[in-house]
């Protein structure tokens, strides 16, 4: 059953992509109501606390906890049937083993009674230990193709992560920089969902060749709203 935006009363923004209606949640996840699907990318679990496990908790505490808590809120709001974690879900190959017990339980609870798909990323090329879910390198659904790293050769309907897109505008001498979704209508790149993950400006050369610049649109993640801003408004 597709989700109804009015009912949810969430400040998500509707957008058309490859003929499908998608919703962008200001917290950084993507919802595909028709398929009852929720997508998050680049959770980077255990990025900060990886060393904490071994050496005492002097490194940023709670980053995994914070990320999962946020994810739980999104899941509670959208009640998706399927969840795709679009790669770099764990910061390194051992990260899933180091999950603190409380986080492991929290994650299991989120995965319960849902289809959970781990797409592999460059940080986590192998399936997570003892967590279940489906593990794959790419996931095709209808016109959309979910994978971690965008492929330089041109592909329609690709939804990727990896680059942690952020964008910046300048208005009346003041700059505002936010994480964002970026798309030219052919490909879409999702922002990183995890705490302690930085952003890379979409004007950076790392994006060269990925978008048709004249068609580039960005969706800034605001506090309680999403703002669509055209590529020609952006600054480096």
């Amino acid at each position, binding site marked *: 059953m597709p989700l109804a935006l009015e009912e949810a009363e969430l400040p998500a923004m509707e957008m058309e992509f490859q003929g499908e209606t998608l919703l962008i949640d200001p*917290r950084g996840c993507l919802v595909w109501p028709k398929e009852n699907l929720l997508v998050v990318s680049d959770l980077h679990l255990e*990025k*900060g606390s*990886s*060393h904490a496990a071994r*050496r*005492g*908790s*002097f*490194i*940023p*505490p*709670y980053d995994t906890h*914070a990320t999962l*808590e*946020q994810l739980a*809120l999104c899941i509670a709001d959208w009640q998706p049937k399927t969840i795709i974690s679009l790669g770099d879900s764990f*910061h*390194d190959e051992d990260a899933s083993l180091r999950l603190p017990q409380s986080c492991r339980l929290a994650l299991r609870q989120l995965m319960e009674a849902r289809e959970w798909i781990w797409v592999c990323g460059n940080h986590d090329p192998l399936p997570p230990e003892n967590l279940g879910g489906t593990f794959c390198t790419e996931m095709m659904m209808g016109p959309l193709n979910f994978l971690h790293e965008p492929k330089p050769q041109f592909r329609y309907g690709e939804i990727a992560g990896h680059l942690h897109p952020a964008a910046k*505008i300048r*208005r*009346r*001498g*003041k700059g*505002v*920089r*936010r*994480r964002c979704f970026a798309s030219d209508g052919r490909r879409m790149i999702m922002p990183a969902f995890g*705490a*302690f*993950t*930085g*952003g890379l400006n979409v004007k950076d050369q790392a994006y060269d060749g990925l978008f048709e610049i004249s068609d580039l649109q960005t969706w*800034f993640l*605001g*506090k309680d*709203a999403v*703002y*669509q*801003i*055209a590529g020609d*408004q952006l600054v480096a």
Partner: protein
Amino acid sequence: MLIAPTGAGKTLAGFLPSLVDLAQTPKPKPGEAKRGIHTLYISPLKALAVDIKRNLEKPIEEMGLGIDVETRTGDTPVSRRQRQKLNPPQIMLTTPEQLALLIANKDAPRFFDNLQTVIFDELHSLVTSKRGHLLALGLARLRSFRPDLKTIGLSATVAEPDDLRRWLVGQPELGEIALSEFVHLQGGAKPNITILDSEERVPWSGHSARYAMGDVYRAIKAHGTTLLFVNTRSQSEILFQELWNINEDTLPIALHHGSLDVSQRRKVEEAMQRNELRAIVATSTLDLGIDWGDVDLVVHVGAPKGASRLAQRIGRANHRIDEPSRAILVPANRFEVMECQAALNANYLGAQDTPPLLSGSLDVLAQHILGTACAGPFHADGLFAEITSSAPYAELSREQFDQALDFVSTGGYALRAYEQYAKIKKTEDGTWRLTHPAIAQRYRMNCGTIVEAPMLDVRLTRKRGKNAAFQGGPILGKIEEGFVESLAVGDTFLFSGNTLRLEGIREAACYVSKAADTDPKVPAYAGGKFPLSTYLADLVRGMLANETERKDLPPQVREWIEIQKLKSILPKRDELLIETFPKGDRYYLVAYPFEGRMAHQTLGMLLTRRLERARAKPLGFVATDYAIAVWGLRDFSAMIDKREITLSGLFDEDMLGDDLEAWLDESFLLKRTFRNCATIAGLIERRFPGKEKTGRQMTVSSDLIYDVLRSHDPNHILLQATRADAAHGLLDVRRLGDMLSRTKTRIVHKGLEQISPLAVPIMLEIGRESVVGEAQEALLEEASSELMRIG
């Protein structure tokens, strides 16, 4: 007095006489009474005392001396403190506040009756504040217990060593000066300091140095262990998070500042000792004497604000006298580039700009008088002689002393009617005693001089909004109350690496929840914490005036100054440049005194009053460390041309007379200063067993008292103390006065059609504070609605 460069081993040298003495003293036989404290070591920082204990125990153990060393700080558990009183260690490492508590005890004479030596570490940093005043009075007390007491002062290089030498020994009659012995070790390897040479563009203004994060991260990767210094807690939080955002290699990077929970701090310190960290982001809690061993790079983010402070911080790298320290300065904006270059030149020249010593403050005196009474009855004459033997109070007049005594016994003239202010009374035998034993208990809760920033516990609550629970919850650390008070419920801020959302303040705690925002509402940078030193300011002015002094600046900054020369004026070293120009629908007046933010803040208040009177319709002003900008509705240039206002009249020294008085009458700042003095002097209490007062509650009652005293007792001792504080602290009137008299006939004015290059940084500061939180959202909305129109 031992002055030596960092890494020379001066702390251990300071302990040597005590170690020799203790090693030669036969151990007490079983059953024989312990001999009490032999050596007292006093450091400005708790962390330093802990560190010294580690460094001292090792040689003691290796030599098999069997000497017991213990720390006693605010973090020491009460049970251990009690045990220490009954069974004191031979060497006790402590802080000025703990000393004040120890001597305010009736057992103090017995506790210290075997005391041979007191060692003051980092004395240069202790003596410049009220803490130093209280400590000097405590030392005078110890000296009256033990007239032959040996004092040892340890210090980094200072401008006036004689000030410290005087401080260490009892002062004779007024007019004479006694000095301690003096050992000055010169030399040390010249540090290797560079200013970050970034490919990125250095921003005009701001304090985050975000542009340089990539460079800083690469530097961390290229070195073994790096110490990163910043000036404020909020900067340390930002830097820490920015570094973690790009920490692709998950390098162990830790955070250390005074507001973090003590167990968290200890963990970081221990990890550092074990060499497990690659980098540590720290505020001034770490910039004194702590030996971190294998640090091989110091990165200083933001301008150091003073040449001596920079030298001290850079001394942290290597910490061995024969090897040069390696340091990189990372200026956050273009003025800071100039400041860093100036500091760099100064460090090479070995220049020192430690602030001058001030005479002892009266509120501290009042606290000490009460503390003395807590220990036992005293004679006024004896106490006066004891107090004037300490260097900061050597010039205290008997009249002022009697006024302080009167204050402690009655509250002073205007408060005489209220019994609660009568804390001591004169008895028939001529001694002064406490009126009630409970006062001693209250004194112990209120002792100390650090009230500038009342701290609140940061407690985590799980629920948000209306349902938030205001009790229990884990404590994440402590935070300045003043900062929390500037926030509204729902605002977010960075703390110990988390973005937190304020849910409310209850008693001595602020309740927060975890926020999802990655862009917290960061506090406006309080650059005023360390104002630009006079010495460094002069060097920066020299750099503007003189092309040859600019030769080492990076090209983009040099070019900026050259364009200023073309478009406007570069002031000479002793000139004050004032520019006026229109922008938008407003007119601006920008002056460049380079006297630090506090002095500029005061100047701004006074200038706007004067412009108001001249009907120039000023609307507001903004002050930075370097400049001040005033804006208004009338054309300043035209008014100056028509001689409706004259700049020499506007910047006349007489503004420090009536205008200052009038402003202080209305200002909130003086009330806050009064609150601090009243707290130190014991007029109002900050803590009471079970019900801690927050700073806000104190403000209410202290404001009332302030008004009463101003109208009925304008010469009250606490008003004297308040005015003295205002003159050099919060308002920096002294420095403003120096500047006005220096530039009296040397004001140069340039009327411009548009903003000058030099004015760009301060113009960007205007309204900077409004573009957080909701304002950012508004800009985004504006940008997206434009798109809709185009679409």
